[in-house]
């Protein structure tokens, strides 16, 4: 399938021995001039890049307390060294979180600390050279910003913050990543990551309406740009066509239908994902978020609900109010924004949804906690609701559910291997290797508990699983959307029931 070896799945995870330099060659394509410039970055490496990079580092240290504190505080205790899925899957020591941070820290020390200026060798400080920049480009694009390391760090040092800063520094000197920057450009102009214009979107949604009506006999709507609707649904654009994402979208539509609320999507803000976060750019992240605010204002909705997407939910839950708030024009009785899982869960709690769980009996499910949902956001009003609520929904819609081992779920969950702006074909080796810890945990429940499918609430996870599951000998369709399970089992109360039909026949 490719020119690298898929890692072996062992019965129990083993921490690998270091293999220096084995992932040095892994680099995503560099963004072309026009895509760089569209985001306000220089098109290519600027002449005085060393100086500019240090200037940007100083600027970011002054704007982000996290960066300043994290650069200073690491004691090299090693707590994080075996926590990164990319280290576990590749054995490259520069994929240990602390070593990844040190790629930036060594430069900070060299130019901005007393010890590094006068005793560089003693404290491991290094000059900013082309080799160091190459290392940055390679290894800061081997971090999916999943925050697993930050759970275990005694000071909460979050490598995601460091890699975001490093990517922003690289963008500022003209070395951007093609995948992320092209996508941000599309979302900022067309309204979604795919560059899907309004007519195409309307057409897709119409197709879905027909499909669902054919399937259920119920005219479930997929409204677009409907002014005066109560709810604006913002969902990752992959939900419009990718499998199994689209089955999740059908699930949301059925839940809205059953709840009897009016809702709409927006062609102007037809994207929940916000890749501005991946490149650490507050301005780009804000730009994209403001589209959602504008759509909500223009459509006159009262609530905003987000579809299944991990990093999108982080930006929505943790940052939206900051970036595009305050949302005082929306209904204050609901949190802004709400997750579709919160919405569905509320209805289940109020006993407003009826399920025929047997519809999902052909599957035994497990749940993959997506990193940004698990470690960077919440659902509901209690800490940890992000773990309980999706599981409660799955249990409401399915009879067979088993969790993966405790060290691979909840706050300890492993990234799918494709998050953080790495879901691109030019990083396939990294993606496959980085998925190993997750696949190992999945294999455990497949073998021990007869699990057949894994459910997720993240567009990136779903796409990544579809791609990497086959490398490990699993089926690409093992991955399902949580709201796909809801969709399968939900009983639509206005459905023409089989009983009525047969009764009618009997009477006739």
């Amino acid at each position, binding site marked *: 399938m490719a020119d690298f070896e898929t890692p072996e799945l062992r019965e129990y995870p083993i921490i690998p021995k*270091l293999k220096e330099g084995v992932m040095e060659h892994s680099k995503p394509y560099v963004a072309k001039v026009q895509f760089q410039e569209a985001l306000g970055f220089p098109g290519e490496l600027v002449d005085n890049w060393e100086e500019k990079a240090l200037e940007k580092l100083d600027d970011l*240290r*002054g*704007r*982000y*307390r*996290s960066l*300043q*504190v994290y650069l*200073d*505080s*690491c*004691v*090299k*205790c*090693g*707590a*994080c*060294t*075996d926590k990164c899925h990319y280290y576990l899957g590749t054995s490259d*020591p520069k994929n*240990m979180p602390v*070593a990844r941070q*040190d790629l930036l820290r060594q430069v900070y020390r060299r130019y901005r*600390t007393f*010890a590094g200026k006068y*005793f560089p*060798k*003693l*404290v*491991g400080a290094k000059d900013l050279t082309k080799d160091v920049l190459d290392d940055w480009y390679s290894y800061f694009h081997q971090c999916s910003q999943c*925050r697993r390391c*930050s*759970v*275990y*760090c*005694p*000071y*909460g*040092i*979050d490598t995601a913050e460091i890699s975001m800063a490093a990517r922003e520094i690289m963008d500022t000197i003209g070395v951007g990543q093609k995948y992320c920057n092209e996508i941000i450009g599309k979302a900022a102009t067309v309204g979604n990551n795919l560059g899907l214009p309004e007519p195409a979107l309307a057409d897709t949604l119409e197709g879905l309406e027909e499909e669902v009506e054919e399937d259920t006999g119920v005219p479930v709507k997929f409204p677009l740009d409907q002014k005066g609707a109560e709810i604006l649904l913002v969902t990752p654009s992959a939900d419009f066509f990718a499998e199994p994402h689209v089955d999740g979208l059908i699930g949301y539509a059925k839940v809205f239908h059953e709840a009897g609320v009016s809702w709409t999507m927006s062609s102007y803000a037809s994207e929940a994902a916000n890749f501005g976060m991946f490149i650490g750019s*507050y*301005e780009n992240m*804000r730009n994209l978020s403001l589209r959602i605010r504008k759509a909500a204002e223009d459509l006159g909705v009262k609530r905003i609900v987000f579809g299944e997407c991990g990093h999108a939910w982080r930006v929505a*839950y*943790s*940052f939206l*109010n*900051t970036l595009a708030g*305050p949302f005082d024009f929306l209904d204050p009785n609901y949190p802004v*924004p709400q997750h579709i899982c919160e919405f569905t869960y509320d209805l289940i709690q109020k006993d407003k949804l009826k399920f025929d769980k047997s519809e999902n009996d052909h599957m035994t499910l497990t749940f993959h906690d997506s990193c940004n949902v*698990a470690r*960077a956001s*919440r659902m509901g*009003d209690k*800490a*940890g609701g*992000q*773990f309980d609520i999706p599981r409660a929904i799955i249990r409401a819609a399915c009879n067979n559910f088993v969790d993966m081992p405790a060290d691979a779920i909840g*706050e300890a969950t492993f990234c799918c291997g494709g998050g953080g702006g790495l879901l691109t074909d030019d990083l396939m080796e990294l993606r496959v290797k980085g998925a190993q810890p997750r696949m190992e945990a999945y294999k455990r429940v497949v073998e021990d508990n007869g699990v057949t499918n894994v459910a997720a609430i993240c567009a990136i996870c779903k796409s990544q699983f579809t791609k990497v599951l086959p490398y490990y000998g699993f089926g690409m369709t093992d991955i399902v959307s949580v709201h796909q399970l809801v969709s399968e089992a939900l009983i639509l109360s206005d459905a023409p029931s089989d009983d009525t039909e047969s009764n009618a026949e009997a009477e006739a």
Partner: protein
Amino acid sequence: MSALSVTYAILFYAATLLLVVGLVRKIALYARTPAPLKIPTTPAPVNRTGVVLRMVQEVVLFTSLFKATKWTWLFGWLFHLGLLLVLLRHLRYFQAETWFWVDLIQPFGKYASYAMVVGLLGLFARRIFVDRVRYISAPSDYLMLLLLIVIGISGMLMTFVTHTDIVMVKGFFLGLLRFSIEPLPSDLLLLTHLTLVALLMIIFPISKLLHAPGVFFSPSRNQVDNPREKRHLAPWAADLEK
């Protein structure tokens, strides 16, 4: 007033000054720098009280480290707990009339030095023998541990083996507190101990020892998880809205 006392007096005044000024500057920098986004590592407390509790657990029990690796936790915690008791015990050299609890903890403080040194040796061994930790260690990481180990062992030798004239030592430090230079015993062990302690004070604010104030300023640990309920806006981010 011997040259020795004058030298050490100057050394300790300088070290104290560098320590205090260095730390105050760093803490001011951390406090001044905004945290523009809500980034607590979740699940996180949803109110202030919860955050205080989280921070206390983190600082007193090293909960995150405990989740990460039991050996590092054990050695790290032994060292820090030992160090704390040892430091508290040393308060008696700075008080003419010691507080009752300082008297009370003297025996604990004495034996805590064992915990401190054992913890340090464990951390040192880990740095040498675990390939991952060896990879990330710079010379300064080993030297820092050595520095603390020698401080600990020189102190223990004076406590348990060859006593120095601690009355005179106390006189010296009480003297420093009122800006008067009193005699100091010219005991090699004591002078080694004191020199290294001063060195530790000097490098504290310019080294990784900044993790001590740093942990309190870590946004992933000290933020309340309430972004939907309360709008969080940094001054520079507010300027973007103008």
